[in-house]
């Protein structure tokens, strides 16, 4: 059978890729894509710990569901913000959205 | 007798035994057998699909007071094969500047989203089905729909055509919106049966759920038609406005896949309607006579459902997109939620009562909710009309002038 470590390392890889996306992509929408990857990595961990721990304790799955809800909320608000910014400043490049300085 | 009871299992066992005899490992042999099963199922579906084309053309002709295909073969039965040959030998065009990978992927995904639905359709109670009794089957329907949505937006976007993109946008907006009443109406059989599994839902239908929840069945049908993108909700294609919507740039067999996918999708949803609300493979004990009878029963119900969907399609006008979305968000969604709450409430209150009390209260609650809705609609439409035409005049006075 598959050991727990496989899932954890897979999730760590997914997380790191998401982190790279968040830090390195120029497009604000792409940054949000990276965030989604990170959230998915976390969810895999939650599901894996549920499966490999006490299976009658549903906390892992419940938390995963709540992460789904949070992700949906995050995307809705995040994309709304991106579109709003795009309307005002005509850009979605994260480096150019730097009104909040000095 | 074993053969009659479970012929597929027998065949599968024989096949696996044969292959292990050739020196194949057990796991691989099972995999190959399963793959073969899937292949056979899909092949049968494709054949059904071909006849659906004929059926569709014949029925639309009758609706429109025509005869329909009648030249090739008896009743024009060979006509669909001619259609296929035509599609195959047509020039396969890929537009310039199209995103080729995505463009070619879209029709496949579209077909796939329909075919994977058949993974959960219970063809018969005790024949080893290719299908799985998934414990989240009701949600699986929505998930497969999500892939269909994706295929449409992929097709619309990658064609690099404004009409295609517009059509895809409209279609996706409709599909995403109507998913909500669809989920709510799917939850009604779930509540009634206490399970999301298709087999469990069918086993619980000693009384058809259509009788327990006619309103739920109606909402599911409306949402399903919208998911399918058929008239009166065919915003995505809207032949007279958008030429053909998201698939305008497709030709040849790629278009054929979209087209066949749509027909099969309609047929499949007819089947789901039958499974969720009309007892699936059960027909007053007929299914116990022979397991083979279950499959025709289910297919018969699916055809009935498909016929109703066609009936709606060819007798209704297209609805404007804003009306359609308003209808969904302001009417269908609240109604489906209200129905879900009422159903759950009645279920909890009466689940220990005698079956006829339970059924009657379920039916009556649906009836009352429906009556309230109709009454509300009547008042609303009257108010709307008066806003446009001014207050209605009494008939006698009007006649006097």
């Amino acid at each position, binding site marked *: 059978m598959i050991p727990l470590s496989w899932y954890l390392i897979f999730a760590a890889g997914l997380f790191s890729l998401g*982190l790279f996306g968040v830090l390195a992509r120029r497009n604000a929408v792409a940054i949000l*894509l990276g965030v*989604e990857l990170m959230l*998915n990595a976390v969810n895999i961990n939650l599901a894996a710990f549920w499966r490999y721990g006490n299976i009658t304790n549903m906390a892992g799955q419940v938390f995963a569901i709540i992460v789904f*809800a949070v992700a949906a909320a995050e995307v809705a608000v995040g*994309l709304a913000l*991106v579109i709003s910014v795009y309307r005002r400043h005509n850009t979605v490049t994260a480096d150019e959205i730097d009104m909040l300085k000095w | 007798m074993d053969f009659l009871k479970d012929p597929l299992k027998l065949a599968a066992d024989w096949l696996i035994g044969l292959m292990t005899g050739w020196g194949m490992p057990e796991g691989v042999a099972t995999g190959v057998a399963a793959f073969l099963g899937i292949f056979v199922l899909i092949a049968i579906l494709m054949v059904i699909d071909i006849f659906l084309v004929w059926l569709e053309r014949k029925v639309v002709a009758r609706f429109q007071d025509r005869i329909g295909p009648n030249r090739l073969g008896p009743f024009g039965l060979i006509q669909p094969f001619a259609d296929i040959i035509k599609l195959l030998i047509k020039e396969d065009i890929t537009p310039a500047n199209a995103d080729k990978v*995505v463009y070619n992927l879209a029709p496949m995904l579209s077909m796939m989203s329909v075919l994977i639905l058949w993974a959960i359709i219970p063809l018969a109670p005790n024949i080893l089905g290719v299908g799985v009794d998934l414990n989240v089957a009701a949600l699986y329907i929505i*998930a497969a729909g*999500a892939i269909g949505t994706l295929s449409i937006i992929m097709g619309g976007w990658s064609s690099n055509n404004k009409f295609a993109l517009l059509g895809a946008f409209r279609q996706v907006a409709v599909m995403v919106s109507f998913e909500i009443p669809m989920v709510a109406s799917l939850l009604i059989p779930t509540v009634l049966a206490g399970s999301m599994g298709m087999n469990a839902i069918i086993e619980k239908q000693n009384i058809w759920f259509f009788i327990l929840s006619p309103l739920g069945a109606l909402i599911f049908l409306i949402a399903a038609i919208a998911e399918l993108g058929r008239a009166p909700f065919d915003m995505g294609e809207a032949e007279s406005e958008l030429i053909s919507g998201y698939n305008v740039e497709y030709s040849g067999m790629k278009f054929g896949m979209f087209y066949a996918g749509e027909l099969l999708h309609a047929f499949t949803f007819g089947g789901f309607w039958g499974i969720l609300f009309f007892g699936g493979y059960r027909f007053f004990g007929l299914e116990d006579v022979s397991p083979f009878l279950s499959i025709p029963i289910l297919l018969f119900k699916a055809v009935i459902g498909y016929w109703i969907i066609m009936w709606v399609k060819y007798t209704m006008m297209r609805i404007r997109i804003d009306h359609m979305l308003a209808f969904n968000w302001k009417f269908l969604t609240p109604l489906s939620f209200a129905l879900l709450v009422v159903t759950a409430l009645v279920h909890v209150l009466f689940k220990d009562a005698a079956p006829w009390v339970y059924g009657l209260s379920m039916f009556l609650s649906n009836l009352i909710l429906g009556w309230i809705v109709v009454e509300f609609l009547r008042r609303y439409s009257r108010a709307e009309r008066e806003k446009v035409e001014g207050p209605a005049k009494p008939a006698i006075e009007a006649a006097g002038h």
Partner: protein
Amino acid sequence: MTTAQIIFLVVAAVTLGSAFMVVTTRNLIHAALWLVATLFGVAVMYALLDAGFLAVVQVVVYIGAIAILFIFAVMLTRKEMRDQGPQLNSGWWMSALLAVLTFGALVSMLWGWKDMEKVAMDMPVGFDSVSALGDALISPNAFVLPFEVASVLLLAALVGAVYVAFNPRHGDSRK
């Protein structure tokens, strides 16, 4: 190596590969489509973990809603962000280094952990994880409060998103 392990490795490779494409590909629509592939891979992971409900919800919510939303957002902001030009910012090598470091640190920290090679127990007979999950979500002795809070969050996000994305130049209905 069992069938499950082979499936896992294939799916993991495909998923990580598509995740890599998500963060590197130039065309944002393609990035979103690669994201769909990644999410699908994650859904298969859930299925491998016997979390069928999560798998289906993953497809419904992520692919059916979130990914579509991404594609819409990309199209709505497309004029500016053409597919040419660098898609990574100037400090991307530092980010890459950091991501690799994070991965290395996570793996090296996990390496010595005692439960690392743990193998899952079989599912108890008759245990229906979907109904257990349903019970857990609405039982006052379990997670009903987080569940309600999450629904309030969704409502707030809905209102917030509508307000933020509302374009006052077009038809202000509040007149």
